[in-house]
């Protein structure tokens, strides 16, 4: 039965005051939640930046180029930490890029749908292994059971094992992003290649990989950012501790930007030698932040430049 509209008045079409208040309240609650995340980010940046500024304005510039990183002695050699960080991240990429891309090509080009359905989640599960576990894995297995067989002079804590363990951590990340990029390449391109008498491996390497180049670059950049920011594996496996002497050997222990920060954050029961030691934590944080920011921006530019229009 149709509604009776003979005596319709504006009151019938008006929402009650309570409902209007409820709608407005909900809107504000959501806005506040969104604002909170922005606020927290801003707070972090402000804390890090102001701490870093305190350090920069007070530190003797000469102490930034010294024999090593000994914050409580007032020796803040940045190259020590930077070199170690980059060395470990590069080793990690040498491990993670070939196997990550390989896994991605297998999953996207070769694997039977049933296999992929099981294997991809398994791969992503690997990403959820806590990094502390991988750190322990490095010192309990990678170094003693593998590396020491090849390199007798290797230190118990060493950058090589740390790099390999970080690489293992990054494989699923790279494989997952790369697989998405490969799967986004239209089937029509694979068919065109097959139709010309290309074998599967040729099609994968000469057509699919180049066509997915922007996504693959993104995978590498995200992986590198992750590797250079990784803390726990490096702190345990590379034995960074709170001090390290500049060295280039992969068989030696060495602190990175991240492990030095962790050590500073944990504090020490020894008497502080320099008041600036704690402030250097913020400086390293700002540096790390800047590095990943630049990496991501460079990545964005590269990805956009390689963007394919297939």
């Amino acid at each position, binding site marked *: 039965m149709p509604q009776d509209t003979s005596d319709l008045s504006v009151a019938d079409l008006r929402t009650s005051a309570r409902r209007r208040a409820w709608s407005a309240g909900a809107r504000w609650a959501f806005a506040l939640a969104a604002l909170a995340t922005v606020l927290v980010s801003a707070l972090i940046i402000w804390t890090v930046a102001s701490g870093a500024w305190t350090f920069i304005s007070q530190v003797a510039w000469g102490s930034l180029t010294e024999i090593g990183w000994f914050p409580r002695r007032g020796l803040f050699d940045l190259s020590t930490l930077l070199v170690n960080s980059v060395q470990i991240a590069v080793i990690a990429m040498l491990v993670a890029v070939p196997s990550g891309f390989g896994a991605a090509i297998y999953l996207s080009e070769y694997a039977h749908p049933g296999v992929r359905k099981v294997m991809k989640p398994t791969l992503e599960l690997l990403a959820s292994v806590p990094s502390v576990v991988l750190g322990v894995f490095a010192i309990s297995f990678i170094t003693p059971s593998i590396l020491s067989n090849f390199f007798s002079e290797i230190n118990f804590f060493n950058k090589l094992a740390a790099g390999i363990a970080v690489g293992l951590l990054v494989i699923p990340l790279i494989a997952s992003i790369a697989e998405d990029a490969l799967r986004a390449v239209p089937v029509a391109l694979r068919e*065109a290649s097959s139709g010309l008498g290309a074998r599967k491996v040729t099609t994968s390497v000469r057509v699919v990989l180049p066509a997915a180049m922007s996504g693959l670059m993104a995978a590498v950049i995200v992986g590198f950012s992750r590797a250079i920011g990784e803390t726990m594996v490096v702190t345990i496996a590379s034995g960074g501790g709170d001090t390290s002497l500049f060295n280039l050997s992969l068989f030696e222990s060495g602190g990175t930007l991240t492990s030095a920060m962790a050590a500073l954050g944990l504090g020490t029961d020894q008497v502080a030698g320099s008041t600036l030691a704690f402030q250097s934590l913020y400086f390293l944080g700002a540096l790390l932040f800047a590095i990943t920011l630049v990496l991501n921006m460079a990545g964005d530019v590269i990805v956009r430049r390689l963007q394919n229009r297939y």
Partner: protein
Amino acid sequence: MNPEKALMTDESDAPEMLVPSEPHPQTRIDVSAVAAMAGQRAATETVFECGDINVYYGDFLALRDVTLDIAAHEVTAFIGPSGCGKTTFLRCFNRMNDLIEGARVDGAIHYHGVNLYQDEVDPVEVRRRVGMVFQKPNPFPKSIYDNIAYGPRLAGVKRSALDDVVEGSLTRAALWDEVKDRLKTSAYGLSGGQQQRLCIARAIAVQPDVVLMDEPCSALDPIATGRIEELIAELKTEYTIIIVTHNMQQAARISDMTAFFSVQANERGHRTGELVEYAPTSLIFTNPDDPRTEAYITGRVG
């Protein structure tokens, strides 16, 4: 007749070679099987003999009992309503259905006397002889030059000979004059019609024996379509062409033989295609045998 000879395009009929010094890569197709077939093979210019082809996607029969022969240096058109299996059938000739998960082809297609569906046959070798042009232009995200050079590079054509192959293929595909000044630019800068001619040039750059075309004009405007049709008429002097088309006028204009396929749904709604009639094009469009063909070409169904 030398059975091994049967595997190759007859030299005397072969197109003027694009690369004189490069012989066509030799086949590894089983020779004993050829010997068995050679006795039965008539001396006609038959490229493909298909016997009782059934194609399944999983458990579902997509195409039933197709038997027909394809003659050399002719344009053979497959027409019929959507879902009648004409594209599925086309993809049997270069084993392209192998790429589709769950697809299975029963029956035999003899290519110059060799059954393409015996175990020893490598589909990759088949596709180097039986090229394909697809419904939607699908150039690689590479330069125009690299698109054409892709197949010849795979076949081992020397770098020094590539320029000639690229120019020759683009010329045959009636595209050379339009692109000769921008060979190193992306193929995506071309119009749709140009892209499709590029794909044709890419297919003939490997000097195939047969070119399969799957509705090559369906994504193109009438002018681009006209150019492709002219091209097909020229190409048939050198290649055997099998074309799937939705456009009956197109089939009438360009083909020598026409196969009409129809589709039947079973009680569970599965649609299975079948060959209704196969005859010279002039005959099928003027005096079809089967009432279903007549209904389709006169526009009463489909």
